[in-house]
């Protein structure tokens, strides 16, 4: 019975059939007659063992929920079905659960185990949906379970599950804000995710949970920029908005110089934020001139160079202006408005104008933003003036906004067209709109002097309009205009005086009275008469009019007391007994002031000055002025009030913070190991953690320094880190660093002392886990120990012993803290006062070790500028590298670096040596290949003075040895980097590896793929290069182009696989395909996808171009172009092997 009625509902579905079923009509429940048992039939259906009945019941229940009816009393019956096999029933049960769990917390717990089981399901979609529902149940008791589930899901194999985890984060956060720290850790982890699926969701979680932790973005910034175009549209909006804020904290104002100039220029000081020159006074001019010259001087001194990361953001967001999604377009537009150089902002205008054709709500929001933008950047929208013309069919709110924009865009050249348009609008039937138009005319008149009279005349004509509202509005506007030049317009004032008989709108009457009072000297005859009339009607006037009557009376009394004395007295007497206390007060006050009595105080002498002082003309300005301090496109901007959760758009920094924080390097020894210690198994990078596991002593050494910097903890550590920066401070400004040190105070000294205290035991000190720390400590310790060949610092080392030690400590702690900042989630973000320090750091950062620790230069003389340039190169390299790393297809996992054995444990008598090609540029000499060598001492005794000797090299080959390793304790591992110039050949480099007791003959033979380094080029460049290569040497085809056909295996056919295999085989970089989309869809774009890779040989820099064309059924063609035939041939062989293995 109940089932059949339910069918009716589903099929017929009309509300009038469905409605009574939910219990209003007791009869519909069949046998159930009492109202409170109304859901019994549903319960029965849910308890039945037929899925169709259950489904039916659930549908009716969900329909009740959808209608907003309470179905909570069914909870026990529904929750039983949570484990139902039928997927449809299950889904509906989930819907119910999520809706009512909050109200029935205890019962909801019954369902948890089902979800927990679901979390372990092999199907990723089931895992995801279990997590989704689990996290949507707002029951506080299960917070720990949720936390655990989220953590687990965050490292799930499936990106979809990880996305769901990202979605769950804000849910948990809103349920229990206490979990913030844990959640930030998860966010940090997910931010590092490289899939587009996760990116949008995790940034959204970031924005909801910890938008202030901008430091978490550094490492992911470039990746986010590069992924952006492939992220789904909603994610794009969130990411772009967040990156806008990020960029405001990290980069310099691209309009800095212009704004300085313009501010000085005396032109409407639009771009200065703290300008004080709203009135363009003559006296200011000189000052401004001065400012201007100063500004130009500054400009000359510091030419602005845009940070490449800033550029990257602008470049990668621009295509999104073409999105179909209005929110994305708006997000990009606001990003450009806030971040782009003035000259480039224009591109957004077209896209915004396009949005104007969209739905009226979209228009409304876009127009609000355009109104704000058009104040600052008028030129941008001027070409589109006509797109803002108003149609009679537009809704009023749109009309008013368009009017606003038109007014903002008005200038000398287009004012006539605009006024003509306005004339049409004034005739409109929509009176609110007409009023707005009159206001707009008023504003145009004040802003553009040339048309002031025209406008005024036009407005005066409106005074004879039949509609009172129009007249009233005109009066108000005319009043404002007249204030600017009253002398010339006494006839208008007279005209308006006549209007007092007709106009009834209080505001207009008040305006007229004020005008007559203010300029009573220009209309000496009329004014007393007006007052006479007003005195007559005083009692019937509105309050504002009464106040103005009193005002008028007072002014007339002061100027023309003969004629108006009595009238004034009369008005004041009337006012004395008015109902409104304001008016009574005003009357009393004025009487005291103007009517001289013996009691009247000193003020009455100044009555005239008080009342008839020259009043400044009102400034008619747009209500949208200065609204851009809110981030455009935001809700807060729209409301012109801070909405909850709004993140303030920061001002540009004075000096850019350290850009190197965004460098993402292929992780290596130092970083990883120390990070791991810090984060305790956070990231599992097997390669490094292995080595770490063996190195007990290192850890202790490190942890010692850890505690040192740890003792300063939080705030102190950062300061000490930024205080002075090794060599830089020496040669640049000692004083500066010293000042800093003073500031940092005791904490730091303590630290120094600690380190000093540790000094006497150099063994423990000088064996850090990283090659680079070796280098550092060596650099520092050698002079002290007195070993003579410390070439490292001779040039510039002139500091005293103590400061040196300080330096060292700082270096270390610097590094430590840096990492800490990047990795430790719970640390508070750096606070503004510390930025000062940071800035200093920024300049020095070029020398920062973090920058080029891939290729630590062993103890050799390196002139400083070389240092600098090389690190710059590294920086740039890092940029293109990240490009590779980030584009989803070209990930070269660090684990792929193949390690080769140099010395076996047994032959080496306990010393085993491995090497790998780190693929980092070797900064001391870019023509060398960087080889990372890892020593592991598995013997029982320590190995001493490990170094290279007696290199037997082929002609032309060169070698840059690593610095001697003084001691390698038992069980320890250390790695160093050496550079070898293989002269673009695969000949082995033979040399001797010496310990204090023995010498081992070893040789390093590079695979051909390591003899090159990646270069970045676009597809077009690639094609061009390929052609020129062919032409220049191409008389003998086949000399420099080698083509091989091959068949790819099944598992290797994917784009990703191909790219990965090629880049593993050879150190090349992927040439981005012509279309960004091509990177993502797995389907081959027409005709067949070509994967291109580019590189150049390390020594001679000859180009190496590789392209792989894949066709159907795994057929593929490999083409290698290289000037060096031998290299080309070998490379073909290697890549072939890699692809077909």
């Amino acid at each position, binding site marked *: 019975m109940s089932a059949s009625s339910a069918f009716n509902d589903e099929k017929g579905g009309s509300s009038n059939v469905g409605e009574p079923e939910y219990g209003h009509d007791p009869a519909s429940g069949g046998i159930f007659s009492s109202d409170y048992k109304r859901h019994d039939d549903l319960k029965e259906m849910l308890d039945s063992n037929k899925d*169709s009945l259950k489904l039916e019941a659930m549908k009716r229940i969900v329909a009740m929920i959808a209608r907003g009816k309470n179905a909570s009393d069914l909870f026990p019956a529904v929750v039983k079905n949570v484990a139902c096999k039928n997927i449809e029933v299950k889904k509906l049960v989930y819907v119910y659960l999520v809706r009512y769990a909050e109200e029935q917390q205890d019962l909801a717990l019954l369902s948890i185990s089902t979800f927990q089981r679901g979390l372990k399901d092999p199907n990723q979609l089931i895992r995801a949906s279990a997590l989704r529902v689990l996290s949507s149940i707002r029951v506080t008791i299960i917070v720990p379970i949720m936390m655990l589930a989220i953590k687990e899901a965050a490292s799930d194999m499936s990106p979809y599950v990880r996305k769901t985890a990202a979605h*769950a984060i804000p849910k948990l956060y809103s349920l229990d804000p206490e979990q913030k720290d844990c959640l930030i850790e998860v966010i940090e982890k997910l931010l590092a995710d490289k899939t587009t699926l996760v990116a949008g969701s995790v940034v959204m979680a970031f924005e909801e949970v910890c938008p202030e932790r901008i430091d978490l973005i550094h490492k992911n910034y470039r990746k986010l920029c590069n992924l952006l175009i492939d992220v789904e549209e909603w994610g794009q909006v969130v990411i772009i908005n967040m990156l806008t804020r990020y960029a405001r904290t990290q980069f310099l104002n691209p309009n800095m110089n212009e704004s300085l100039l313009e501010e000085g220029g005396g032109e409407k000081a639009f771009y200065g934020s703290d300008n004080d020159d709203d009135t363009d006074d003559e006296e200011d001019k000189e000052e401004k001139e001065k400012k201007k010259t100063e500004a130009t001087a500054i400009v000359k001194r510091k030419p602005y160079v845009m940070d490449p990361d800033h550029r990257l953001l602008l470049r990668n967001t621009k295509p999104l202006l073409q999105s179909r999604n209005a*929110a994305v377009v708006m997000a990009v537009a606001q990003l450009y408005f806030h971040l782009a150089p003035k000259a480039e902002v224009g591109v957004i205008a077209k896209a915004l104008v396009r949005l104007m054709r969209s739905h009226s709500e979209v228009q409304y929001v876009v127009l609000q933003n355009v109104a704000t933008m058009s104040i600052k950047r008028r030129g941008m929208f001027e070409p589109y003036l006509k797109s803002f013309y108003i*149609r009679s069919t537009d809704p009023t709110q749109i009309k008013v906004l368009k009017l606003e924009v038109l007014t903002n865009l008005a200038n000398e050249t287009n004012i006539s067209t605009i006024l003509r348009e306005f004339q049409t609008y004034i005739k409109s039937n929509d009176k609110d709109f007409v009023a707005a138009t009159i206001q707009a005319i008023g504003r145009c008149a004040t802003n553009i002097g040339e048309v002031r009279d025209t406008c005024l005349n036009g407005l005066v004509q409106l005074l004879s309009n039949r509609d009172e509202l129009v007249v009233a509005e005109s009066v108000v506007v005319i009043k404002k205009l007249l204030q600017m030049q009253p002398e010339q317009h006494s006839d208008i004032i007279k005209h308006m005086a006549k209007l007092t008989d007709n106009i009834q709108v209080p505001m207009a009457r008040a305006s007229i009275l004020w005008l007559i009072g203010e300029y009573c000297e220009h209309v000496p005859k009329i004014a007393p008469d007006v007052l006479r009339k007003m005195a007559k009607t005083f009692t019937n006037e509105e309050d504002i009019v009464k106040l103005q009557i009193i005002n008028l009376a007072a002014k007339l009394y002061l100027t023309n007391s003969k004629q108006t004395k009595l009238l004034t007295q009369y008005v004041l007497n009337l006012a004395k007994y008015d109902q409104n206390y304001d008016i009574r007060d005003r009357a009393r006050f004025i009487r005291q002031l103007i009517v001289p009595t013996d009691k009247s105080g000193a003020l009455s002498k100044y009555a005239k000055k008080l009342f008839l002082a020259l009043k400044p003309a009102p400034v008619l300005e747009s209500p949208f002025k200065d609204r851009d301090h809110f981030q455009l496109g935001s809700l807060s901007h729209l409301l012109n009030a801070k909405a909850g959760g709004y993140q303030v758009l920061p001002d540009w920094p004075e000096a850019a913070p350290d850009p190197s924080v965004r460098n993402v390097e292929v992780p290596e020894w130092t970083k990883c190991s120390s990070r791991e210690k810090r984060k305790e198994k956070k990231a599992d990078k097997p390669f490094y953690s292995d080595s770490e596991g063996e190195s007990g002593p290192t850890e202790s050494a490190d942890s010692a320094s850890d505690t040192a910097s740890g003792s300063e903890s939080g705030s102190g550590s950062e300061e000490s880190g930024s205080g002075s920066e090794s060599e830089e401070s020496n040669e640049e400004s000692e004083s500066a660093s010293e000042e800093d040190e003073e500031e940092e105070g005791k904490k730091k000294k303590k630290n120094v002392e600690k380190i000093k205290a540790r000094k006497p035991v150099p063994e423990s000190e000088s064996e850090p886990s990283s090659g680079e720390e070796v280098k550092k400590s060596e650099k520092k310790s050698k002079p002290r120990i007195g070993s003579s060949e410390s070439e490292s610092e001779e040039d510039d080392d002139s500091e005293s012993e103590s400061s040196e030690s300080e330096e060292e400590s700082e270096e270390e702690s610097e590094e430590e803290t840096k990492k800490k900042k990047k990795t430790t989630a719970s640390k508070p973000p750096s606070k503004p006062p510390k930025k000062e320090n940071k800035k200093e750091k920024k300049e020095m950062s070029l020398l920062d070790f973090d920058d080029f620790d891939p290729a630590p230069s062993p103890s050799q003389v390196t002139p400083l500028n070389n240092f600098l340039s090389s690190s710059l190169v590294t920086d740039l390299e890092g940029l293109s590298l990240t490009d590779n790393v980030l584009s989803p297809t070209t990930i070269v996992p660090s684990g792929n670096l193949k390690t080769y054995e140099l010395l076996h444990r047994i032959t080496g008598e306990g010393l085993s040596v491995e090497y790998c090609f780190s693929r980092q540029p070797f900064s001391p000499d870019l023509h060398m290949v960087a080889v990372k060598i890892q020593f592991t001492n598995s013997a029982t005794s320590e190995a001493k003075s490990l170094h290279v000797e007696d290199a037997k090299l082929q002609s032309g080959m060169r070698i840059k040895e690593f610095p001697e390793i003084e001691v390698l304790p038992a069980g320890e591992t250390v790695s160093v980097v050496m550079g070898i110039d293989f002269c673009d050949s695969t000949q082995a480099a033979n040399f001797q590896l010496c310990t204090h007791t023995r010498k081992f003959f070893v040789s390093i033979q590079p695979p051909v793929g390591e003899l090159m380094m990646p270069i970045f080029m676009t597809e077009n460049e690639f094609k061009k290069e390929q052609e020129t290569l062919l032409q220049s040497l191409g008389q003998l085809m086949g000399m420099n182009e080698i083509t091989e056909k091959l068949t790819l295996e099944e598992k290797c056919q994917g784009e990703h696989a191909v790219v990965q295999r090629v880049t593993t085989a050879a150190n090349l970089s992927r040439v981005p395909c012509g279309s960004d989309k091509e990177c993502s869809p797995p389907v081959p774009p027409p005709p067949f996808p070509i994967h291109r890779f580019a590189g150049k040989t390390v020594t001679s820099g000859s180009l190496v171009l590789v392209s792989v064309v894949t066709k159907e059924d795994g057929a593929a063609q490999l083409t290698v172009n290289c000037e060096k035939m031998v290299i080309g041939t070998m490379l073909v062989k290697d890549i072939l092997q890699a692809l077909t293995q």
Partner: protein
Amino acid sequence: MINSLFLINPSGEIFLEKHWKSVVSRSVCDYFLEAKEKALEPEDVPPVIHTPHHYLISIYRDKLFFLSVIQTEVPPLFVIEFLHRVAEMIQDYFGECSETVVKDHMVMVYELLEEMLDNGFPLATESNVLKEMIRPPTILRSVVNTLTGTSNVGDTFPTGQLSTIPWRRAGVRYTNNEAYFDVVEEIDAILDQSGTTVFAEIQGVVEACVKLSGMPDLTLSFMNPRLLDDVSFHPCVRYKLWESERVLSFIPPDGNFTLMTYHVNAQNLVAIPVYVKQSISFFECGSDGRLDVTVGPKQTMGKTVEGVMVTVHLPKTILSINLTATQGSYTYDNGTKLLVWDIGKLNPQKLPNLRGSLSLQAGAPKPEENPSLNIDLNIQQLAISGLKVNRLDMFGEKYKPFKGVKYITKAGKFQVRT
């Protein structure tokens, strides 16, 4: 993000509510209803309303209000765009978006809403993905559902969500493989009393209906892409290729979708296909006026102008009208004062004319503004800008698809001031 959604009909009844976070009482809608009362037209309701604890962002579409409740800062366009997607989704699923349709498919709409947002953040908004999870109703399916007791919830999982091309579902099969493209251009114009063009521009859109099996990769090129000044694309279009080669290269979604919208270069003068001679006058003393409107073809590129329609919002003070049309028929609604003259095809030999008298309410003043005329028209087989599709190529699949391109010109917001 988005906290709750309420669907409200024009009379103020809330007939569906969905909450993605904690439940927000529907009393919050009172603020909105209040604003709605104040507004003269439904379009005049402010899209964003600030209440003490919430922000209400609403759209008015298809005679329904979609009202969303927001608690914290979120880009308003984000919400508005999403609400429009909801409306489009309903339209896509049930053929139209109206109160009855939503009430008929309450559960399904609710389920769709559940899938579209997670915790207020959009999760699956691509119609192809949604349709994989919840199948749209067809007559056949509803019969089967009735008989078997199953419903439209997809039993497969939405694999589309996992793919990098979420807009296309996998495993599409058709016996007839066809791809149709409609190039629709709209003329937006404002003409003044004398017939001179105050403002005119052409906006175009390429609508596609692609029913191709497998994973086709299409390339569409134009003869004269230089005409296009500003474009926006469906996410499937590869922007870089457009930038470099001016071709549209894409893996299409399955079914109907909007491939691109464009704006024609402003330098090109816009051909106005019709002219309108009109005179509307009210007599100062008497309580009546005259109306005389003639429409004729102007620059039609040799094509016939069809579906011509003139819409006039007459002043509120009009009491009654008495008109005669030489061609077509007119309707007049005295309540809304809306005069619609449906002309049909334009015959250059015999120009259609509508004339007659208007009578005003007694004593009412003469209206200051003459009502403006809104013109509708369409011209088949013509893209007024001259845009032409050059060719359409398909890669990635072996069959030969049937391809078709159609051009239409329409009047967009075409207004004649009088």
